[in-house]
């Protein structure tokens, strides 16, 4: 089988699995679980060749396939991967089996529907990362919302309806504007060439005027900023996380948030390079606010899950900073940090889920001294916390450090402020760890807690492998992405220089802080 076919097979394998699941009677619960697990494991295993054969020295799309789809509209089934999407694609197939395992006992009601939602969700997510046609992308983007809505709304906590609605409506508001922008691009392409197409690669050849770029950038950016979520569009996140079942939280944090950052890389930067430059200072400000704000709010959370949710706001701030700095180290760091956040925050949610299953509480004050009764859990949990706070030797360090070291030359002040965030990351995580895991056991109910089962250890082990693999030998992953990243940066910079030459007088960025500084210097 050639790799392009394999890419399609992997993407739709979970969906096919969901269809077959329809035929399994709902009373056969263990069969349903095993089937879902099997499908996700096989999906992961057959996705490995994609990673292995992915050529890191090629900048463009690989494993492409273009099929007729809706010729009347100019929409094609065009898919493929490049360095920007391959890791996120792999992250998705990697996390899914773990989430299925984590739902083994946690989900007992409507199990069949749950597993179907999970499998459909996986196909939709994989579709988002490989779509190279705007209609196809939009289709997957929206399709992903439905199972996620159900996961929160049906299998969630007490305020699940509120949280699910908020999640869906908030996301929709953003994506509707994106749809308008997509249509604008579609007609604009027609204006220039006379042809109708939604093909991203073709649309990327357009030279979009600055004024239009600004509005298009904003329309796309809103959709993605909500998804990331960037401050101040983040308030749906804690609600969604707290109410979602463990598996939902893991996918939400692990994959769905990355679609926001991925969108910025795939669309905003290459399509609207001048607008991206124009808004860069604004992105920096929001990213740094997100980093500090998320960290401070995490510090005082009483619910562990909410703490992890707010910490995502902080972590994603680092990624946004790294992406818009547009240096190779920072962008490479941002990309690898997307994977790291998927692994570490996903793992934090898994850990919280394990303890919630035993105690039916996530309140920090209900715990204390858990290490004594759950030493194996304590070890895993600590390593995950350390990776999340970016301890050297773990994955989190590689991403954070590359982002910061790459950002410093471009935006030193923002970088210093962002670095303050790593002090607080240690504070909120280890303080939480102290209160949950250390000290004497004060609550009687905690005395009878049992340590991790074999199934739970099986969930944790692959995560440990990834934490230290990326921590000590990130080249496996960085080498796959560097060429694509370099090409992206080159594309953006060329567009910027061209614009600068044509319009030497127009302001480069929304705030003129940098230009202002230079003027001050020259006056002296």
């Amino acid at each position, binding site marked *: 089988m050639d790799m392009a076919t394999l890419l399609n097979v992997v993407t739709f394998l979970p969906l096919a699995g969901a269809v077959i699941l329809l035929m399994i009677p709902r009373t056969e619960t263990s069969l349903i679980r095993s089937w879902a697990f099997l499908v996700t494991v096989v999906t992961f295993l057959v996705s490995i060749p994609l990673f292995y054969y992915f050529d890191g020295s090629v900048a463009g799309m690989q494993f492409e396939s273009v099929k007729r789809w809706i010729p009347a509209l100019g929409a094609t089934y065009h898919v493929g991967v490049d360095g920007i999407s391959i890791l996120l694609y792999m992250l998705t197939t990697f996390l899914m089996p773990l989430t299925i395992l984590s739902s083994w006992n946690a989900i007992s009601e409507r199990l069949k529907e749950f597993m179907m939602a999970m499998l459909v969700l996986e196909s939709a997510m994989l579709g988002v990362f490989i779509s190279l046609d705007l209609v196809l992308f939009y289709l997957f983007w929206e399709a992903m919302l439905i199972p996620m809505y159900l996961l929160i709304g049906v299998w969630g906590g007490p305020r699940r309806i509120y949280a699910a609605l908020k999640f869906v409506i908030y996301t929709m508001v953003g994506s509707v504007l994106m749809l308008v922008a997509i249509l604008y691009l579609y007609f604009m392409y027609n204006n220039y060439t006379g042809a109708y197409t939604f093909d991203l690669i073709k649309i990327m050849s357009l030279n979009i005027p600055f004024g239009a770029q600004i509005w298009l950038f904003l329309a796309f950016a809103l959709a993605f900023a909500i998804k990331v979520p960037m401050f101040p569009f983040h308030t749906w996140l804690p609600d969604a996380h707290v109410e979602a079942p463990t598996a939902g939280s893991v996918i939400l944090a692990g994959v769905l948030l990355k679609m926001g950052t991925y969108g910025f890389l795939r669309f905003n930067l290459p399509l609207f390079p001048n607008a991206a430059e124009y808004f860069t200072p604004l992105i920096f400000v929001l990213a740094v606010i997100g980093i500090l704000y998320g960290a401070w709010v995490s510090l005082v959370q009483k619910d562990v899950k909410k703490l992890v949710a707010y910490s995502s706001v902080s972590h994603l701030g680092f990624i946004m900073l790294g992406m818009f700095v547009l240096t190779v180290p920072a962008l490479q760091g941002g990309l690898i940090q997307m994977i790291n956040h998927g692994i570490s925050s996903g793992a934090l949610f898994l850990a919280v889920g394990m303890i919630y299953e035993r105690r039916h509480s996530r309140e920090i004050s209900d715990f204390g001294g858990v290490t004594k009764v759950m030493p194996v859990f304590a070890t895993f949990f600590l390593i995950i916390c350390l990776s999340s706070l970016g301890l*050297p030797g773990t994955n989190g360090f590689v991403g954070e450090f590359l982002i910061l*070291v790459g950002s410093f030359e471009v935006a*030193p002040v923002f970088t210093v402020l962002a670095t*303050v965030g790593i002090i607080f990351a240690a504070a909120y995580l280890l303080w939480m760890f102290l209160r949950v895991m*250390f000290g004497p056991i004060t609550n009687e109910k905690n005395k009878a807690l049992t340590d991790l089962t074999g199934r739970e250890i099986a969930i944790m082990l692959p995560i440990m492998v990834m934490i230290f693999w990326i921590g000590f030998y990130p080249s496996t992953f960085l080498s796959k992405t560097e060429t694509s990243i370099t090409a992206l940066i080159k594309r953006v910079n060329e567009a910027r220089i061209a614009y600068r030459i044509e319009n030497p007088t127009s302001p480069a960025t929304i705030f003129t802080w940098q230009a202002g500084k230079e003027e001050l210097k020259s006056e002296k």
Partner: protein
Amino acid sequence: MESFIWIVPLMPLFGALFLGIFGHLLKEKSGIIASLTVLVSFIYSVRAFLLVREGVTFDGNLFNWIVAGNFSAGFGVLVDPLSVVMMLVVTGVGFLIHVYSIGYMHGDRGVGRYFSFLNLFIFSMLMLVMGNNLLLLYLGWEGVGLCSYLLIGFWYEKPSAAKAGLKAFLVNRVGDFGFAIGIFIIFTTIGTITYAEIFSRTEQLVAAGVVTTATLLLFMGACGKSAQFPLYIWLPDAMEGPTPVSALIHAATMVTAGVYMVARFNPLFSLSEVSMAVVVIIGLFTALFAATMALVNTDIKRVLAYSTISQLGYMFIGVGVGAYAAGIFHLMTHAFFKALLFLAAGSVMHALANETNIMKMGGLAKKIKYTAWTFILAWLAISGIPPFSGFFSKDEILAKAFAYHPAVWVFGALGALLTAFYMSRLVFLTFFGKSRVEPEVAHHIHESPYVMTVPLMILGILSVIGGFVGIPAILGGGNHFEHFLEPVFRPGLENLPGAHLSHALEYALVAASVLVALAGIGLAYLMYIKKSISAEALAAKYKGLYTLLYNKYYVDEGIEKALINPILSFSRWLWNFFDEKIIDGLVNLSARIMLLISLIFRRVQSGYVQSYAGVFVIGVLVILAYYLLA
């Protein structure tokens, strides 16, 4: 050297992993395995030392760690005179403390975990001193910080221990913030983080005008790790950990990492007079400040902790005035005698059912002889009595400090007086005089087993003779130590103005510092043995000062009030008010407005055909009117 050098750090790493998985099954046997891994590392370190002495050095990567664009960090080691000295100290003293721990931790539930952490510490510390670039230094730096966190909080069920671990980690992170930004500046300016390349391109840093900023930021990291003012606050609390941990991590090795860093970066630090001055001033202030707190403390381990902070201050004075070799020399002798002091203190606690209050000790010299005698050797060494090791190293620092500025010598000597006094107070109150031991503890006072006392004796011997490797020329020695390290410090020394003291002056300084030490001991003798000066009366007379010292200048309380509480209140406000009311309030408000609008427009869709027809007719009329009238 390439063939074996990686064994040095990797042996303890394997030990740590192995014991991390199987330690709970091996229990007491863990200690033997852990000690053996460190012994192997020590043997290979000696082999490396012998090669380095012949002039062989090694600088090579095992693999590329992080590469992205123009950024590249290798996983590689640099073995030169400086790192080999550190390797010997870390593995040598580390091995003795591992062996001692076998006895000390006997019967503890978590002994497997303990030795796994201890091995992990040795690995991290070795990466710290052996790494050939800034990022590996940072890796080791945070790694030892992690082990410190884990081992301070080893008895995690004790809330104070768990809290002390967290405090240590967070205070260190504050320092590391500076360290990290220092790395960013260096990389951004010259595009490399490898030592060899940085030191060959220092002129680029000078040209960019960032040397002072960069070195001060690196020094901020050093202040955190090496417990210098104002980031020293975590170290006294770190005494919550098991005593061998205090000896290994919080006295002999980890806390000296900052001194190592400044010495390693001598080609950079020496380019900035400001940075050098800051190092000296912070070191000098910390040396005195910590010593004053040691004067009145009654906890045997905390006195030693303040003493460590103070002695680290001396090391910084050394590397700050450009006496790099002397600073490292003192680092080494201090590792011997301070590790010994802590281990002996542990042996005292072992004898007294974990009592640490020196007011409940006294007269122990007769009952636990080995412990007492080794402690006394270390006491003489730290007090600066010739020919014990501390005398040579401290004296050399002070002599060079005099050449830098006489005032540094004056305050340094004052610190030495305080040191001699509080250490003598500690010895007299613990081992001499009448016993004040609680009766139920007193009848089973016993000397520790050989597995603990033999390491004490070895360290005792080292505390006596350790200084002979660096006897300065005026005292008839060849100062082999300085010559051995000279290649590493040559770039730094070349940047500094050479200052020479006359022989007569040097002799006078030596005599003065010996007199100062004797004065400190004499004063303590009068107060605590002869009782001709009443310590209580003094405390009552200067009650304000005594309370201030006893409460450690209220620094912890001040930080909690001025820093931690405001941050927490602000964070609560951010969450409860700003996030939930304002931002989320706006989100929900916009949803409500939509709902309200829908409620209004809902009326349009009433379902009554006649009203639809009515609207339809009106619409037609309006359109007609528009076309007719326009």
